[in-house]
């Protein structure tokens, strides 16, 4: 048997494929991504290094900053929780039952994605102002919504809703009804079937939807500022404080708060990534 001449092994810098254009397209992608997204974000961190640690800490621990961050993160958490509960009920109604206007409502769930935040902001404000369609009856009950933290909460619920619904909906749709029938035929009550069979199957999607809604709410600006009242320490969200510091030419302050928010959103993004991987594993194994 003739020996096959062995070629010196050459390390392939990229995969062998008959499809052309790998180097070119990846090159353009990496260049454009770096120029438009990665370098500007890195610039924020570089700018923040101009501050000494004690200066940075003084800005971040300033009561007004702390109150703004608390308000943003606290209300976002609350809004995401409310969306988790009501979003799940909405998904259940849309997937499991048929009722008039169901398809229309299903399509309208995406309105918070598509409606510009400024439009949502003034619409919610006019709705919940003391003379608004919903604000007037609430005011009669002694509840003031617009220009209070409650107004911020409503705006954050508005923008977070589609994240929960659109994450959970496909999972509930793909859930095999025979699982429930099996549970029922084995003697489980309806409540047991829901809590022991259906909810565990939905859990990864529920958590992902919750995290996505939370992440969006933390950074939200446009839909909140009209309804918020924007009183320092009371109804002033962190993104608004960044804008205010910029308008006061206090760039260091704006940068430091932005770094805190950016790091927080990276942490949330990392958690969402993990959750989504878990979710995919769950659905592919079942």
């Amino acid at each position: 048997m003739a020996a096959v001449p062995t070629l010196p092994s050459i390390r392939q810098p990229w995969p062998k494929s008959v499809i052309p254009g790998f180097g070119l397209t990846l090159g353009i992608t990496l260049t454009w991504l770096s120029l438009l997204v990665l370098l500007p974000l890195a610039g924020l961190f570089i700018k923040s290094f101009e501050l000494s640690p004690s200066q940075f800490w003084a800005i971040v621990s300033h009561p007004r900053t702390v109150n703004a961050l608390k308000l943003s993160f606290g209300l976002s958490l609350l809004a995401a929780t409310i969306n988790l509960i009501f979003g799940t009920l909405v998904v259940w109604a849309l997937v499991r039952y048929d009722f008039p206007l169901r398809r229309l409502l299903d399509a309208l769930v995406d309105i918070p994605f598509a409606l510009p935040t400024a439009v949502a902001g003034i619409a919610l404000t006019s709705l919940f102002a003391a003379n608004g369609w919903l604000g007037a009856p609430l005011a009669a009950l002694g509840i003031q919504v617009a220009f209070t933290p409650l107004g911020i909460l409503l705006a954050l619920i508005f923008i977070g809703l589609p994240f929960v619904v659109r994450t959970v909906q496909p999972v509930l749709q793909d859930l095999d009804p025979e699982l429930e029938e099996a549970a029922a035929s084995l003697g489980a009550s309806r409540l047991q079937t829901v809590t022991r069979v259906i909810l565990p199957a939905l859990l990864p999607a529920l958590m992902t939807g919750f995290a996505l809604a939370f992440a969006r709410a933390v950074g939200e600006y446009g839909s909140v500022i009209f309804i918020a009242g924007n009183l320092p320490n009371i109804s002033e969200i962190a993104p608004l404080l960044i804008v205010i510091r910029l308008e006061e030419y206090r760039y260091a302050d704006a940068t430091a708060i932005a770094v805190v928010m950016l790091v927080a959103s990276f942490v949330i993004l990392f958690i969402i990534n993990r959750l989504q991987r878990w979710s995919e594993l769950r659905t592919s194994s079942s």
Partner: protein
Amino acid sequence: MSVMDATQLRVAYQQRTKPKAAQDRPFVRWAIISVAVAFLAIFIVLPLIAVFAQAFSKGFSAYAAALAEPDAQAAIRLTLIIAAISVTINLVFGLVAAWAIAKFEFTGKSLLVTFIDLPFSVSPVVSGLVFVLLFGAQGLLGPWLQAHDIEIIFAVPGIVLATLFVTFPFVARELIPLMQQQGTQEEEAALSLGASGLSTFFRITLPNVKWALLYGVLLCNARAMGEFGAVSVVSGHIRGETNTMPLHIEILYNEYQFIAAFAVASLLALLAVVTLLAKTLLERRIGSAKRGVH
């Protein structure tokens, strides 16, 4: 009889056999539907109706007059220009990125996809701020830009940059999953029959993803026209010059010109409704494109 959709089929299927614990009681069903509909009515339907009701509350002539106003016209024009630029660039980038990511295997791919999605998780205000810190008077490149008399912040280029940043993932993320699912077999067949790379792309790949591409473009366009936070930070709010429609709405609203504010807002709300309508139609097309692969 009309064709049943997935939910109607599922409901019919569930009502076929009736083991008690596999079904919700009528009372439960009624309660859940009521809560869901009430929740959607309050948070989604009423705000949408409120925009149009407010815009037309003083009649059609007041509405038309608000839109005919020169500053409103300038804002509409600027918004259209910004959207045209950012949609075009994102369209090209989305196709290029999706080609690299979906048609080839390489290390670090999932990290690259995460980076492409990054702008989604950055606060709009921070997205604007990074460009101020880069190109503003006090920014890293500020002195150089001033020396060369180039204006980016508080000018149109800054608005374009901020819009490009926030809309960066839209087209790519619609294309990547579909192109990954479709694989490379059709392209390989075309290439082995002697087609050039470019004609393979235009004759095979592009027709296969056209609906997903249109879908991504629609979403990108809606966000580009509606972006507020990021643009607000870089724009400088110069009337008639650097005011986009969302920024113009804010100015009008803060001046208590509610009819005018809601009139401009109604145009963007209409855009949102049209986008959703097209989205619903396109999702069926994309669904059948995905099923066609299996």
